[in-house]
């Protein structure tokens, strides 16, 4: 290959990525699509193309219910996490003296495994958990609170804690990037602190907020560890159903179909979100 031409250079440079994406993303995706159009017989797989799985997925109320719940839980996690992360990121970017130390502290949860962190929440929120014991010892309650664990609330809380750094970092970067003279200019032109925040800081950090939302929302919809450990029966999500299809139920084609539908729903919601958030940003003047 003549590496001197620009085109050849481009092909050569992108080849590793192309091979990687081809084998590890595109090929598995195609296999998934293929599986979704096959049929599980008891031990074998019938490879006649059919849309029966899709029909089943669309008519089964359980699928729709779990999908909507997954999206709502993920949306709640996203809103809670970003709302809590913004002030932290703002503090580190604007006020904190030792930024590196603060950023290091924020990554501390990652020093232990994800699974351990979920179990930790189980210990904190459980019937005989840290929180209930403490409240009982203080005499604030007479019997353990049962609404803490095994429901949507526990799922949202656990996921929000787990994903917090992923929200803080992009928002931190976008706040850090703002030229301080822009805020001075806003003040000079008569804006109060709140007005400068709403008319300058917020629109300029919108890309960071959108990035944080996507980074949290997309993986959260498909999370199955947290709901299965702290979600109880009320907190089950679509990923738990998919897991069952590939495990106990042994219906890979339906599992593949559900996976694809989950992917499409998430993609659709994400696109609608990004477009409306950007539209909102453009209306701020």
């Amino acid at each position: 290959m003549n590496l001197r031409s620009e085109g050849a250079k481009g092909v050569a440079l992108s080849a590793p990525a192309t091979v990687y994406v081809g084998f590890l993303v595109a090929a598995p995706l195609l296999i998934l699509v293929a599986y979704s159009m096959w049929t599980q017989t008891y031990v074998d797989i019938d490879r006649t193309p059919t849309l029966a799985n899709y029909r089943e997925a669309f008519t089964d109320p359980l699928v729709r219910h779990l999908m909507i719940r997954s999206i709502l839980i993920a949306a709640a996690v996203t809103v809670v996490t970003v709302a809590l992360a913004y002030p932290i990121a703002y503090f580190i970017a604007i006020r904190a003296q030792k930024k590196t130390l603060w950023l290091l502290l924020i990554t501390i949860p990652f020093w232990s495994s994800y699974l351990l962190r979920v179990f930790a929440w189980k210990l904190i929120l459980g019937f005989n958990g840290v929180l209930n014991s403490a409240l009982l010892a203080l005499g604030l309650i007479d019997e353990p609170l049962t609404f803490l664990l095994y429901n949507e609330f526990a799922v949202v809380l656990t996921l929000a804690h787990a994903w917090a750094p992923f929200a803080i970092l992009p928002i931190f970067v976008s706040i850090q990037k703002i030229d301080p003279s822009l805020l001075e200019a806003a003040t000079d032109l008569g804006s109060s602190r709140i007005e400068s925040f709403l008319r300058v800081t917020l629109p300029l950090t919108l890309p960071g907020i959108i990035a944080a939302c996507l980074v949290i929302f997309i993986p959260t919809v498909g999370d199955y560890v947290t709901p299965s450990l702290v979600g109880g029966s009320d907190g089950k999500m679509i990923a738990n159903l998919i897991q069952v299809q590939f495990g106990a139920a042994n219906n890979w084609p339906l599992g593949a179909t559900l996976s694809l539908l989950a992917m499409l729903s998430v993609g659709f919601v994400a696109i609608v979100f990004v477009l409306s958030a950007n539209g909102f940003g453009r209306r701020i003047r």
Partner: protein
Amino acid sequence: MTETNIIEMTGVEKRFGTFTAVSDLSLSLREGEFFSLLGPSGCGKTTALRMIAGFQEPTDGRVTIDGQDMQGIAANKRPTNMVFQSYAIFPHLDVGDNVAYGLRNRGLKKAEIENRVSEALEMVELGGLQRRRANELSGGQRQRVALARALVMRPKVLLLDEPLSALDKKLREQMQFEMRRLQRNLGITFVMVTHDQYEAMTMSDRIGVMFDGKLVQVDSPETLYAKPCNREVASFIGEMNFLPAQVSARQENSLTVTTTCFENLKIETNPNVRQGYGDILVGIRPEQIEIAAKQPDGYDATFRGDVVNVAFYGENVHYHVRVEGLDRPVSASVPNYFHMVDFREGDSVWLGVQSASVIDLGENEPS
């Protein structure tokens, strides 16, 4: 020009920890004048401007604007607007919305905002560019947007922080004239901070020269150039040849001085310097020294030297001439006038000065 003072700064001081950025600054700015704070970087001129704007509170002293004490009045409530060094154009807004930003804070009617924005853009010759994105603007256009955004607020005082430093030379010169014209037409007081002496001289009615946090001299450009108050000001503004001089006689308005180059020359005393009793320093501007092959006629003092360096600037030629008994060569600048003067390195020449060109710079303190 009316004699009302739009800004009064009295004994203003600003300390950051142990560092004193501005010390004992007292300054009165007249309504409608173009005033420049000139000084090398780090001399406290920007801090002084920011104290007028309200971005920094003085540690001590008082700032009043239009008779109103500014103590405790936040930047967003002051009748000043600022053009920032970086221009600080809001990148998420287009030109029109940038200019309208401050008007929207005042809750004006939509139609009035539109009128005033387009009027302001016309004024800076950006008419019709309302919908241009901030990132599509050239450096000069950004500067004009920043100007329009501040002027549309109709401030009592417009503050400019090194407004032209980001532009290239040609554009800078053009903007100097335009800003001057705008200021004249609007009659708004402009306070500009700059480290560029030419910029300050071409644009300002008066200039305040600052060194190390202190305001050293406030005067018109002409007076600053002709009667600087000390050696520092004399060398910061324009070029200057310095000669130590012995004073042989002191009269009411004149001194008789002797230097290595001339003897018993009677020169005018400089009212801006502190008069002492010892030896003094005198200065001569390079363009006020005549250079000739033969002893020139009609000069109050003439002396000999050897050309050691020639620098051709186009519009004029600079000669460095070594004079017996002086540590530094004397610099003489001659207009490039049909090559009437053309000396080479090593040529022996005569230099001539008029006594009016010899500036009294006061007592010769060892520097």
